[in-house]
């Protein structure tokens, strides 16, 4: 039995994992997860903004990190729309970000009575290698630097941009990303313009961002799909992250169980071998 457990074909584990993820979608088990401090801070930051405030929203993710960044983008956009904040979308890290963020904003705009060009705008995608130069220029002159939106309209002529001239006119910067693109925002926009900034990042990238959170350079952060799940609970909505929450918990339980089983089997086998060698001597 111990040998079977030690040499179990990995494909059995994959099958178990797929089942552990798929089955919870059919059970409606209410789970309340207390929001972590970083999620709480981001929620409070957006709550504190008066209606009409302008938020620069970076959608620096692609289909590769959709599982984490999409629920984060959805909850943040829904919260901004609920608070009647104006926002501009922009993507640097991946050209897909432009389209994916547009789809999310369009999906929710009718629900909250939002209109493109009036309440929000998508500035589109700019090459990642030029992100630093773009942000540096944006800090000085928003309208000229942003140029046109994704439909080719001059950003300066759009009602959503009323009263926005320099980076200091932003009330908040948010970057949802699976890359280190948020660092350029801190270096060339948040720091020089003293604008609060928040981050939604994949769980892989989150540990690196905690020092920015600790130093106050970031006002809040969503850590992976867990962060989005906590945020949905704060908003009182059941979205993608809530749907995925139970699956994720079951998958974690399975992995923890397998680690314990595998290591337990290894220790017991070692003990048996020791005993066997002791009997022989």
């Amino acid at each position: 039995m111990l040998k079977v457990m030690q040499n179990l074909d990995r494909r059995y584990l994959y099958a178990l994992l797929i089942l552990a993820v798929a089955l919870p979608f059919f059970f409606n088990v209410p789970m309340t997860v207390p929001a972590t401090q970083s999620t709480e801070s981001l929620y409070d930051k957006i709550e504190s903004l008066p209606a009409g405030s302008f938020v620069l929203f970076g959608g620096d993710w692609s289909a590769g990190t959709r599982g984490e960044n999409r629920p984060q983008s959805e909850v943040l956009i829904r919260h901004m729309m609920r608070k009647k904040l104006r926002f501009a979308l922009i993507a640097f890290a991946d050209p897909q970000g432009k389209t994916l963020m547009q789809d999310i904003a369009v999906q929710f705009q009718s629900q909250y009575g939002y209109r493109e060009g009036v309440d929000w705008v998508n500035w589109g995608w700019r090459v990642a290698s030029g992100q630093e130069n773009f942000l540096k220029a944006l800090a000085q002159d928003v309208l000229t630097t942003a140029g046109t939106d994704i439909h080719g309209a001059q950003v300066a002529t759009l009602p959503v941009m009323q009263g926005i001239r320099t980076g200091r006119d932003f009330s908040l910067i948010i970057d949802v990303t699976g890359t280190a693109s948020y660092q350029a925002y801190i270096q060339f926009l948040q720091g020089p313009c003293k604008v609060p900034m928040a981050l939604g990042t994949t769980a892989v990238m989150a540990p690196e961002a905690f020092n920015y959170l600790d130093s106050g350079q970031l006002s809040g952060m969503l850590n992976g799909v867990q962060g989005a799940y906590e945020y949905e609970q704060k908003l009182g909505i059941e979205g993608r992250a809530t749907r995925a929450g139970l699956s994720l918990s079951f998958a974690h339980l399975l992995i923890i169980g397998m680690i314990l089983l595998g290591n337990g089997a290894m220790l017991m086998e070692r003990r048996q071998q020791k005993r066997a060698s002791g009997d022989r001597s």
Partner: protein
Amino acid sequence: MTEFSPWLARATPHLILWIGALCTLGMYSVLYRENRLYRLFEHIFLGLATGYGVALAWTDVLLPLWWKPLWNKGEWWLIFPLVVGLCYYLVYFPKLRWISRLVIGFFLGITAGRAFQVFANDTWPQIPASFKPVLPHAAIAKTAASPAIPALSGADALNNALFMVILVCVMSYFFFSFPQKHPVLKGSAKLGRWMLMFTFGAIFGSTVMARLALLTDRIDFLLNDFGADVGGSVWGPKIMLALLIVIMAVVLTLVARKADIVEE
């Protein structure tokens, strides 16, 4: 697309889901073993992502910001970025290589200068933020001269002290200028190494969580997006789950048979 084919226009949302489901299953076929189907979809994904990036670099950046102003509005000075960019390629011509060095030197200077701003805005604020109070105190009232300082509870003070100890220990681990022979330095460096190990463990745990979140998203897509489109929102996800279980049962039977053959 509506003019081209009304049927295609109507069917597009369903086609997108079907293609998405086929691609997802094709990519996950690697879980059984490396195979040609997986390779095919891998290449399709790579090709699509690269092609999409190249197309958007033209339609979203070069066309509106460079070509149109240059060609339609007569902003002739925009030809200079092209000339400067082309100068990089003079590195392949020995006699004109010095021109490429001028351009490289120019941009190297800009990048080096920008590094100061990066340090000032990125790293510098983290240094004063690392000096945390370690003694609990009551709130200090706001005066004209100094801003208010919030109260520090015993638990927060302990947290700060722990932070300071870990910070010093980890930094002492990275003292390479002299041998770490002194017992205090040796001990703090060892503790620092342990703390680093805990951090790497936490990062690894986060990585597992991230990968599982991506799997959860794909399963959610197969069951609730694709499944609902194929069989309706009530039965569709259940049919898809049953189909997944059948596929896995077939695969695992194959695995078990192969294992039996090897044992024999």
